[in-house]
């Protein structure tokens, strides 16, 4: 009589399926995650205990570096393109239309996340003659005396972005949206902690002039502390 052979089962599990799942998820996460936009300037933000996260979309971000230079950008390519068109519709910027006329410059502007230069300098940045970083660009002029076109260009850009965002939203909503604070694109300011207050004040005054009275300040998270519960 032959002995009954008990077959030893291997403890090894086939990992192929699990491996498939892991890499599928990995691919998904890599594809869905958005790359952090490259900042033209390095900014050390101050910290706060605020736990609200900044919005992902429909937001314009103004960066203020240590020296008080302002850089402006928004996440939406269409808004960026439209904002440039809005600027080119208005004086005195309309006189630079020829410089922006080429397809490449318009396309490059659309792709550029944020910029900081006087208006006449922008075509050179877009064509690559001048690098779009803090070393080569002077920031968007806040002071009309420092602007080649004698305007508070930062204020004009803010209005142009707002206008562009509203126009695009209106095209979707068949002109139902009115010029009101509720429909404006939100502004978030990312400032360097060491910026001297007068520089910040200049920018705040610009915002006041253009009736942008409510905005976000982007900060790092401060660990450990939370808003204490004081008795009322």
């Amino acid at each position: 009589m032959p002995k009954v052979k008990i077959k030893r089962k291997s403890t090894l599990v086939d990992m192929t399926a699990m491996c498939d799942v892991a890499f599928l998820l990995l691919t998904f996460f890599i594809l869905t995650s958005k790359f952090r936009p490259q900042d033209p300037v390095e900014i050390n933000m101050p910290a706060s205990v605020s736990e609200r996260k900044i919005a992902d979309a429909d937001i314009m971000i103004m960066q203020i570096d240590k020296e008080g230079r302002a850089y402006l950008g928004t996440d939406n390519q269409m808004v960026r393109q439209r904002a440039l068109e809005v600027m080119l519709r208005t004086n005195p910027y309309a006189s630079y239309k020829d410089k922006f006329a080429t397809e490449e410059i318009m396309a490059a502007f659309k792709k550029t996340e944020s910029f900081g230069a006087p208006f006449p300098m922008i075509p050179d940045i877009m064509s690559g003659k001048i690098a779009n970083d803090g070393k080569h660009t002077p920031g968007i002029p806040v002071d009309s005396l420092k602007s080649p076109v004698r305007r508070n260009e930062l204020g004009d850009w803010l209005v142009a972005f707002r206008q562009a965002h509203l126009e695009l939203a209106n095209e979707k909503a068949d002109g139902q949206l009115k010029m009101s604070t509720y429909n404006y694109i939100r502004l978030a300011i990312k400032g360097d902690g060491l910026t001297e207050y007068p520089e910040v004040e200049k920018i705040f005054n610009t915002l006041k002039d253009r009736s942008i009275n409510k905005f976000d300040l982007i900060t790092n998270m401060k660990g450990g502390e939370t808003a204490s519960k004081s008795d009322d």
Partner: protein
Amino acid sequence: MAEIAQGSEGGKGKGKKMSTRIDMTPMVDLGFLLITFFVLVTTFSKPSAMDLAIPAKPDPNDKTPPPEVKESRVLQIALGEDNKLYWYRGVKDPKVEVIDFSQSSNVRPVIQDVQQKVKQRWGTLDTMLVLIKPMKKSNYKNMVDILDELAISKVKYYALMDFKLPDDSITIWKGQQPGAGANSNLND
């Protein structure tokens, strides 16, 4: 010339068949490690946002005088150079005190003390008003820090104002920028 390998030479010639299965465990480990990394990095990189509302530009045609506020409700804070913070209450003859504001939590006892005083006087904390006046030599971090401290202490009303010299309501500055040689008599 390329040769086709033929198992072992001659003889019995039955090469052992190698299993085509590979141990996938390390690869799975690596996969999940990368997933964890991406998940953590994408969610934690998002900075937080803090609301700030600045007063609207006054309408030049609007002749109504600005609203008056009871002096006992107000705490005034001036931000100065080298992370100094000056605070005072009242209008007539305010006692100005200086604290080091390099640690933002240093100001918390002051705010909460004033809150208690306001509560005793008015019955609720909510009537307290803080006026923040950043001076020329202060920086953006000081401003964010004080706004943050007000949020921590749950101060409902605050205003960011210009620091003007000579400040008409404050006699103690005597037209002098505090900190510019005037430190010694500020605490008197």
